């Protein structure tokens, strides 16, 4: 039995007559202890997916799904009070900007204890010693002194560690990390990723890593979901997708990275821009920017097609033998 099963999850904003689909038909299945990365450019709906899983989409946003279950409990039919007990306990989330997500008016000890107070009982002394243990777990130096510090007294990397401590306080089974290292420097990012993967292994958590950085996903995740304009373009195992992408978008995205263009003066590019929510094209959302687009792509939205270990939403999936370097995209 999978830990998380999602079928056809959609999030819509805007009026009923002219809905804006921020997320359009996400299928995702996660096992206990699995690391899944969601990558995509801005506006691809990756953060919306994380928020929908947490149940943080408010009116006027509308969340619909054919099925959305966590540990065999239906998240959609669940009353809000029950959802509230899940949130922060079994499903936890960390956000991109640690300084914006911590409350500047309270000490970090208070904010960490709050999570524990809500989800479990305990005396003040017990809570404080648990908080201290958590800070040590996320490798904050001089944890005793940092307990009563305020967020502005800590660096960005330290604040992100506090966020992580808060998220794992109640031993969640699923941790959603939305761009956890984007605001950090590379050296601190490497520390943070090592800590995150270490804790994930040690506790057997499932980790849903949302990021725009393909390098981070390649290093940390087992499986990857590539999103574009609210839709999943491709999902599959990390080595397969990075070695031999089947979707033209994944291939073009990889081909536009400087890492795949070593020694070449010009980078391969994807022509055009990511369409905004108001101007999603008919048919396949990628077709105006895709070099392989045919007549059918302009009219018909492709359904995700199953491959061994992969799901690809394209009328003309690429041959497995075509690597990202031997691509034929228009420059």
């Amino acid at each position, binding site marked *: 039995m999978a830990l998380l099963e999602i079928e056809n999850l959609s999030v819509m904003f805007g009026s009923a007559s002219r809905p804006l689909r921020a997320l359009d038909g996400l299928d995702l299945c996660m096992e206990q202890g699995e690391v899944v990365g969601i990558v995509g450019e801005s506006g691809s709906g990756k953060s919306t997916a994380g928020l929908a899983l947490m149940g943080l989409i408010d009116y006027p946003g509308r969340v619909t799904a054919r099925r959305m279950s966590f540990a065999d409990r239906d998240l959609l039919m669940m009353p809000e009070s029950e959802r509230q007990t899940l949130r922060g306990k079994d499903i936890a989330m960390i956000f991109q900007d640690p300084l914006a997500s911590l409350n500047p008016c309270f000490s970090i000890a208070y904010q960490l204890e709050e999570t524990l107070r809500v989800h479990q009982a305990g005396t003040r002394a017990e809570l404080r010693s648990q908080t201290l243990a958590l800070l040590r777990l996320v490798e904050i130096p001089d944890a005793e002194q940092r307990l009563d510090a305020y967020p502005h007294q800590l660096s960005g990397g330290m604040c992100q560690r506090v966020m992580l401590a808060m998220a794992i306080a109640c031993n969640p089974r699923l941790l959603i990390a939305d761009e956890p290292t984007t605001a950090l420097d*590379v050296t601190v990012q*490497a520390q943070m990723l090592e800590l995150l993967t270490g804790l994930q292994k040690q506790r057997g958590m499932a980790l849903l890593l949302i990021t725009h950085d393909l390098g981070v996903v390649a290093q940390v995740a087992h499986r990857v979901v590539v999103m574009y304009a609210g839709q999943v373009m491709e999902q599959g195992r990390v080595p397969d997708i990075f070695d031999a992408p089947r979707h033209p978008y994944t291939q073009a995205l990889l081909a536009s990275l*400087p*890492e795949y263009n070593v020694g070449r003066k010009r980078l391969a590019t994807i022509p055009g821009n990511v369409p905004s929510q108001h101007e999603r094209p008919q048919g396949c959302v990628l077709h105006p920017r895709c070099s392989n687009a045919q007549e059918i792509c302009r009219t018909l939205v492709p359904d995700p097609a199953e491959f061994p270990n992969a799901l690809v939403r394209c009328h003309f999936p690429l041959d497995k033998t075509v690597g990202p370097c031997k691509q034929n995209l228009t420059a």
Partner: protein
Amino acid sequence: MIMETNSSQVLVEANRLAKQYPVAQGWFKPPASLYAVDGVSFRLAAGRTLAVVGESGCGKSTLARLVAMLEPPSSGDLKIDNIQIDQASRSDLKRIRPMVQMVFQNPYASLNPRKKVAAILDEPLAINTKLNKFERKETGLAMLAKVGLQAEHYSRYPHMFSGGQRQRIAIARALMLDPKLIVADEAVSALDVSIQAQVLNLFMDLQESNGLAYLFISHNLAVVEHIADEVMVMYLGKIVEQAAKRHVFDEPLHPYTKALLASMPRLTAKFPQKRSMLHEELPSPLNPPPGCPFSNRCPHKKDACSAAKPALQDFQGRWVACSRIAEIA
């Protein structure tokens, strides 16, 4: 001091450039001084790209502002086109300022939302040249075409463009006065991967067609590896290593450069690889460790490292600031 570039084509020459800011410590304490840039020297020739890399707070943006003459250095001197900036006459400055233009990180913030593209591109020409209205419009339209935008974009407002297009407008604005040096301060950091590739290509095309030199500031090492000729690694306001790009990326010498490269997420290697990880964070620039600024994070630290600041020295034809470089290389 660096590299044997022919002095006739040297465009920028910085010699022991430093910028110090006073930082208030409270009502009754005297302000502390923060060295954002400390003793930075380099030469940049026309048509070349010098990349500056380092973590946030290492002084790379301050260096950009010094070179763009937005701020005067506290000490040291800066020569642009063989003219010493702090002693230059008004007429010399008037000639030199258009030669150096800047492109900023966030194209959503660097374009005035109340001005049309027309006004944005027109302003530098109206102030600095004697062209009439029609000639200015013609130049502006030609520039739009050059950066890959259409003529119809000329009368639009910045909010009507996407991030990549806005960055093109910012680049077009920088190019209006036919500069020789573009200071690009994290110019592609805010862009999506596919758009970043387009803008990087534009930068490289313009370098070829206009013979531009770039001072390219970035924290993204993959981008730097692609675009730079020479790389300068900064740490707490100082240069720790400076060399040709191939040297820095293939065989880094300074322990900080090594750590920086090892921290870079790679697409090929699986994560918990053997890496020289740094365990601490960047110390406060107000209170740097004694001696070598990197000593508190360095895996090769010896007591001698805290005694004296290592000078930037020539080691195997490259410039490295590490007192133990001969032992650890």
